[in-house]
């Protein structure tokens, strides 16, 4: 991937700590070998087909392109702020109200945040790599990241409306490195929607995005992710959530696009009373591969984490769900759950499940479940008996399967938009 390295990010006026982190990232990317199937963390992934060769940060899109994409950034109308990036170039920045600014809320693009709030950024920015296999690509992100949104919510401030970030790809063979950082101070409340889209159905792209949530004592954070890249995109999403005492953190992800999508989601519970939810819904078709690795670490007792990943598979698509719950020694009274449900709609689709547990404390309630199956023939029969055509009955059941996750987004407008995206993707395929 030499082409990327030749076009380093503009580093003038960069603070020393950031230069050090970027250099560290570069070294990490160059030193670490590409993943192999022998690595347990890449088990079942078709690493042989994983290539990031030939991608490079794109030239800035034209003003017309930017205007067009801003116009299409319309999934959430009622919001506290919005940022739109196209090929990592800022296309729109709709800042926060004066009232929120007066309360000390910060919502800025990454580069502006580095310039205006260096101390805050030094403390949190690029501090969480991944343990789940993509360390090499985290290094590349650290070296090249320039687009993204920073949200800082001070103590006790509660913001009802969401902040919405769009990350578009546009140019041919463009590499993008979006970054979402959410810092929620004690007893604050905020929600963020991250949306990943491609301009056309054919522009090839590489995405290595990173997202970090820091929820301090008593904070409530809700993050929704919509990933609908075109099927020419190779995507890595490396997410980390750190939940302190008495926090409530919800992650809901809807994954529809990309040729290959690797998703690494780490959750660390550091304080008692924390409650972290992770919900995901994936629609995989054609030759798509969704590779999901999750890690729920309970370092403190008396906390709850709950994970539900649902995948519907068509054609020759593949999904890999590999999850691990780790309860550290002494983290008593932990409740940790993990559920993976796979719905095979074609016999050629392949679902892999690796639901894992590592429990080092005895007073815990932990369970995981994984099921894979087809549409229930009895349910289908029941509906057909009542005059519903087979095709319609199938559709109902598939949407019913998704609804459990969709209703969790807690916004009628976004939920409707998501249903529409899913419908577009595969309605014609159910037969």
């Amino acid at each position: 991937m030499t082409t990327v390295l030749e076009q380093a990010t503009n580093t003038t006026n960069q603070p020393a700590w950031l230069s050090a982190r970027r250099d560290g990232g570069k070294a990490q990317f160059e030193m670490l070998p590409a993943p192999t199937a022998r690595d347990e963390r890449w088990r079942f992934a078709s690493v042989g087909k994983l290539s990031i060769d030939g991608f490079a940060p794109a030239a800035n899109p034209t003003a017309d392109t930017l205007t067009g994409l801003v116009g299409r950034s319309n999934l959430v109308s009622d919001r506290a702020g919005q940022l739109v990036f196209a090929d990592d170039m800022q296309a729109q920045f709709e800042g926060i109200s004066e009232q929120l600014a007066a309360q000390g809320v910060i919502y800025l693009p990454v580069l502006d945040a580095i310039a205006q709030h260096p101390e805050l950024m030094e403390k949190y920015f690029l501090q969480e790599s991944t343990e789940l296999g993509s360390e090499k690509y985290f290094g590349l992100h650290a070296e090249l990241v320039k687009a993204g949104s920073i949200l800082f919510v001070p103590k006790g401030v509660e913001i009802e409306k969401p902040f919405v970030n769009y990350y578009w790809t546009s140019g041919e063979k463009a590499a993008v490195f979006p970054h979402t950082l959410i810092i929620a101070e004690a007893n604050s409340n905020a929600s963020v929607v991250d949306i990943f889209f491609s301009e056309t159905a054919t522009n090839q792209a590489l995405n290595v995005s990173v997202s970090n949530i820091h929820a301090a004592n008593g904070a409530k954070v809700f993050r929704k992710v919509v990933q609908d890249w075109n099927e020419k995109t190779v995507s890595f999403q490396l997410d980390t959530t750190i939940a302190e005492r008495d926090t409530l953190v919800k992650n809901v992800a809807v994954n529809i696009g990309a040729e290959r999508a690797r998703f690494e989601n780490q959750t660390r519970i550091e304080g008692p009373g924390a409650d972290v939810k992770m919900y995901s819904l994936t629609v995989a078709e054609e030759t798509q591969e969704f590779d999901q690795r999750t890690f729920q670490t309970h370092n403190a007792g008396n906390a709850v984490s709950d994970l539900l990943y649902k995948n519907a598979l068509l054609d020759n698509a593949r999904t890999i769900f590999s999850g691990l719950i780790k309860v550290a020694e002494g983290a008593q009274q932990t409740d940790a759950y993990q559920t993976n449900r796979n719905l095979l709609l074609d016999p050629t689709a392949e679902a892999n499940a690796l639901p894992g547990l590592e429990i080092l404390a005895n007073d815990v309630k932990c369970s995981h479940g994984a099921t894979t199956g087809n549409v229930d023939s009895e349910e289908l029969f029941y509906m057909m008996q009542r005059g519903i055509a087979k095709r319609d009955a199938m559709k109902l059941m598939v949407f019913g399967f998704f609804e459990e996750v969709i209703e969790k987004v807690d916004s009628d407008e976004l939920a409707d938009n998501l249903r529409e995206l899913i419908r577009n993707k595969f309605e014609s395929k159910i037969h």
Partner: protein
Amino acid sequence: MSETDTEIQDEAINVDTEKGNFKYPENYEFDAGVGLTEDTVKYISNVKDEDQWILDFRLKALEIFQKKPMPTKWADKDLENIHFDEIRYYLSKGQVPARTWDEVPDDVKETFERLGIPEQERKFLAGVEAQFDSEASYSRMKEDLEKEGVIFVGSTEGLMKYPEIFKPYFGKVIPTSDNKFSALNSATFSGGSFIYVPKGVKLKQPLQAYFRINAENFGQFERTLIIADEGAEITYMEGCTAPKFETATLHSAVVELVALKGAKIQYITVQNWSSNVFNLVTKRGMADEGAEVKWIDCNIGSRLTMKYPGVVLKGKGARGEVLSIALANDGQHQDTGAKMMHLADNTTSNIISKSISIGKGRSTYRGQVHMPKHLKNCKNNTECDALLINTNSRTDTYPAITTRGENNTVQHEASVSKVSAEQIFYMMQRGLNEGEAMSLAVNGFVNELMKAFPMEYSVELKRLIDMEMEGSVG
């Protein structure tokens, strides 16, 4: 090893040998020495007077063993503490398998007395193939079984006397190169049971064998192959105990089961090696059309056990089952699990695994379920339940499930729990002490699976669990 250690050990050995006039080590007529080279393998083969093809098989296996890396990428790092060049790979009293109880040497009898074999005999179990070190020292079958054409012999005897029966399946269910330890076994195997049950013969009583390690640093590499011909049925039981020694010993068996059309094989293991034994075992069954292979596995002893019994569901409508109980106490790691490879339509498999971790014990479930795309109507059910007794007990679950095809369903469930304080309180209120209450609760946890074991085994198991639970509370 320090001098005192050696002395203590010598003393221990002397105590053991005096009893039954059993001198150690001179009494071992054949001794391949320490370490594993081509010469060791040739020596073993020579002593056993084997045919050339068996020697060739062994030598090829040795080559594979030496080439394969240790699986420490995913497995317990404790494996690195096995020093292959300090292990004895073959020891035998040079006995041909004895036929009647009277012919068995007194010292051997003495040991078996403690293992309770005569008791089993009294219970009309069909036959006993008891392994004393590498060679079977006693083997006997009820005459009626012989009349029905059942073959029940040791591995060497099986390959030499009945090659037309055993050779076609030997090393076919578990190829030599399956893993490092199956290769090791293939190079050095001796002892074990080779069984053939003819078409339609249904054994009403289980066949049984006891294994035992009794030489320090002495690996035991028994090899078992059971073939149930069309419509045949057999239950085989295997139980192990071992005296305690100062340095680690290695046990690495290979067990292959072949259930032809409509046959049923049930293989029961109670593993209670002493806590310095590495127990690294490869077990796999092949089930043809309509056949059933069932593994019932109970692991209580050893330092590290790695064992994942598997069933290759090769024929339509075949059924595979693994029921397992693991008990991990301080210093023990029970790394067990199951593999189900579905290769035909309408095949079903069931895995139920229950583990109990006591003190710093660690129990691990590793599983694999595979359903490729051309299959229809296959089902798998997996349940793993772990019970943690003490605050620092540990359990892990690492299943891997791949599913494709039409109308296939897989479900996997795992849960982790502890014995509830209310339960213990309730029992203590009724006069049990805390230890007894705990034992009762643990026995309740595994009770459902215990029922799968023959009665005398479940009694023994209950006793073993009580023993392991002693001193775990308070």
